[in-house]
């Protein structure tokens, strides 16, 4: 198996004719991801990526014509909430929203509609997910991966790559690597991904890459303590040196009122039996120490 993306993925790319959409669709196609369709209103009938991907006016048409079941969204922030809602309306089950800069109150409504429809949204402002050797959806460089049995979940972009590279360099392949995005309101949380990893028979160890702000790492740790006993796990938390009350780059990293600090998160993870690395390069060692032989 693998989670979120895999052999059964049939991808439609929303915003495929934009600069980012076109570039990353090419990367996904070259990685071997089954990109079956693209959508850009008013460009229906064209093709993208040297004629390899048909373009439709609406997601509904793309689904009807190609059986797409997963969407990846590169449309600009102003149109991204509507793009997610269109994917939901067309019956897409798994939706990755790569777009950054989407207002939080828009996402509040969007995640509610996604929930009502029983669909799954990853992001926004996320790098996507890769199941090495099968499919990659989003913008994570394909070259950093290696097939294997470690599930990686992260709130960051390039820090995810750093952690994945560290695993690959140490010879530890990945089942699926998921970037959930660092925005305040996101569709899929650490906890949601841990639950998916727990049910995935190809994932035998888990790496969690968190950062300061919010309480998602603490919630994930509490659940893991009860449900992931025996699964080798390692974590890294960025922002130990971040000063209080300052925003570090994106809205995900605010420390408010003494909670959400790196120290709090590290304590919560350690209390759950999850060792926290001082550097991403230490993650493989922690997993091996925890008994993982992958």
């Amino acid at each position, binding site marked *: 198996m693998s989670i979120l993306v895999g052999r059964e993925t049939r991808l439609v790319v929303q915003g495929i004719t934009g600069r*980012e959409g076109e570039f990353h669709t090419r990367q996904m196609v070259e990685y071997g991801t089954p990109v079956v369709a693209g959508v850009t209103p008013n460009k229906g009938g064209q093709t993208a990526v040297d004629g390899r991907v048909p373009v439709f006016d609406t997601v509904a048409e793309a689904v009807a014509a190609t059986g797409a079941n997963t969407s990846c969204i590169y449309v600009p*922030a*102003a149109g991204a909430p509507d793009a997610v809602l269109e994917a939901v309306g067309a019956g897409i089950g798994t939706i990755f929203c790569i777009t*950054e*800069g989407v*207002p*939080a*109150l828009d996402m*509040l*409504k969007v*995640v*509610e509609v996604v929930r009502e429809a029983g669909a799954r949204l990853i992001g926004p402002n996320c*790098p996507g997910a890769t199941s090495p050797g099968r499919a990659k959806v989003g*913008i*994570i*460089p394909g*070259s*950093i991966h290696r097939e294997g049995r470690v599930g990686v979940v*992260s*709130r*960051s*972009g*390039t*820090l*995810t*790559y*750093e952690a994945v*590279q560290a695993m690959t360099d140490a010879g530890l392949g990945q089942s699926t690597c998921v970037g959930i995005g*660092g*925005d*305040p*309101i996101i569709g899929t949380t650490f906890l949601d991904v841990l639950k998916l990893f727990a049910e995935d028979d190809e994932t035998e160890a888990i790496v969690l*890459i968190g*950062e*300061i702000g*919010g*309480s*998602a790492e603490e*919630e994930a740790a509490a659940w893991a303590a009860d449900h992931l006993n025996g699964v080798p796990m390692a974590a*890294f938390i*960025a*922002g*130990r*040196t*971040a*000063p209080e009350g*300052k*925003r*570090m*780059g*994106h*809205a*995900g*990293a605010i420390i408010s*009122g*003494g909670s959400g600090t790196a120290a709090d998160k590290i304590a919560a993870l350690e209390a759950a039996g999850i060792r926290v690395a*001082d*550097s*991403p*390069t230490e993650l493989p060692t922690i997993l091996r120490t925890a008994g993982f032989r992958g």
Partner: protein
Amino acid sequence: MKIQEADAKSLLLAQGLPVPAWDVARTAADARAAATRILADGNDKVVVKAQVLVGGRGKAGGVRLAGSADEAEAVAAAILALTIKGIPVRKVLVAPAADIAREYYLGAILDRASRRIVVMASAEGGVEIEEVARVRPEAIHRVAAHPHLGLLDWQARQLAFGIGLGGPFLRDFVSIARGLVATMVAYDADLVEVNPLAIVRESDGTGAATTERLVCLDAKITLDDSALPRHPELEALRDPDSEDPADAEARAMGIAFIHLDGSIGCMVNGAGLAMTTMDLVKRAGGEPANFLDIGGGARSDKVAAAMRLILADPKVRAILVNIFGGITRGDEVARGLIEARAVQERDVPMVVRIVGTNAEEAGRLLTEARFETAASLDEAAAKAVAAAAAVGS
């Protein structure tokens, strides 16, 4: 983006909430003039409040009462001379001093965990709500607004009864609580706080009768930066006094930059990786001089601008560049670094680590240009710390 109390009050007023009148003064003379008008209107006292975007201004002497125009001028002069938590006070708010019968707390925040707007109310207003939350959490009543319909009347009533604010004030409380959420939605705020929400006694002018009224005596609003593009009018509320000039330049270039106290300048792509880089600098025994995220897909001009920002800080003794190319192309960054070094005025040691997209080409360019490079982030941090130490010694 945080905005000043006076601006927050303007937004609440625009949404129809009851906010007593106020003036803003940039000089003691203007504060005197405002106080004179307010006292002539039959008020006994005025309150003068520092307009700074940090908490604790009361304890810092930034909020004071005055009973005469002379006193108001003196008090304003004193407050305008303050620097609170490093921020010089440039403006004061002048308003009639309210005759407060009772204080409450009311706030609406975007709650990440529940993915809802949560409205909180407490009968223990006028004090730090974080303190109340720590000591007596049961004194804070909460409801989660409906994601589509907002705060419903019954939810507001539930808060009102929860904090003992039924009776004659029930209707006004409901309207204020709904107004807070409406303000949040209207301006894409992630926090709208009124502390205190107060019952104030007001005389009818003749002094014969006193009525009680529920009003917003203070206001705090934080705006969602991602939503600012659709509220261009709010950009004017950005407080230039509260930020470093370097911050403004960085924002104009689309670079996330926060100035810190260390000696090792950092240039990184991605916020999480930038924080990690800082953490590893610290772990290697150094102190980061800044947080700097050049964002995704940065071109050489952005790299050059980031370099200027870093070098503008005289404390910087070494620079660590850490790029994990995904959207960002390593060769573009390398070219930007080479160009920037060619024109830079200070010669500061630099350690560059570029991996990912086009990293080989980047490595070739950097080696050719005799940059010090590193393969791993740990190594890069160690080298940068060593270089800074060498300069410092």
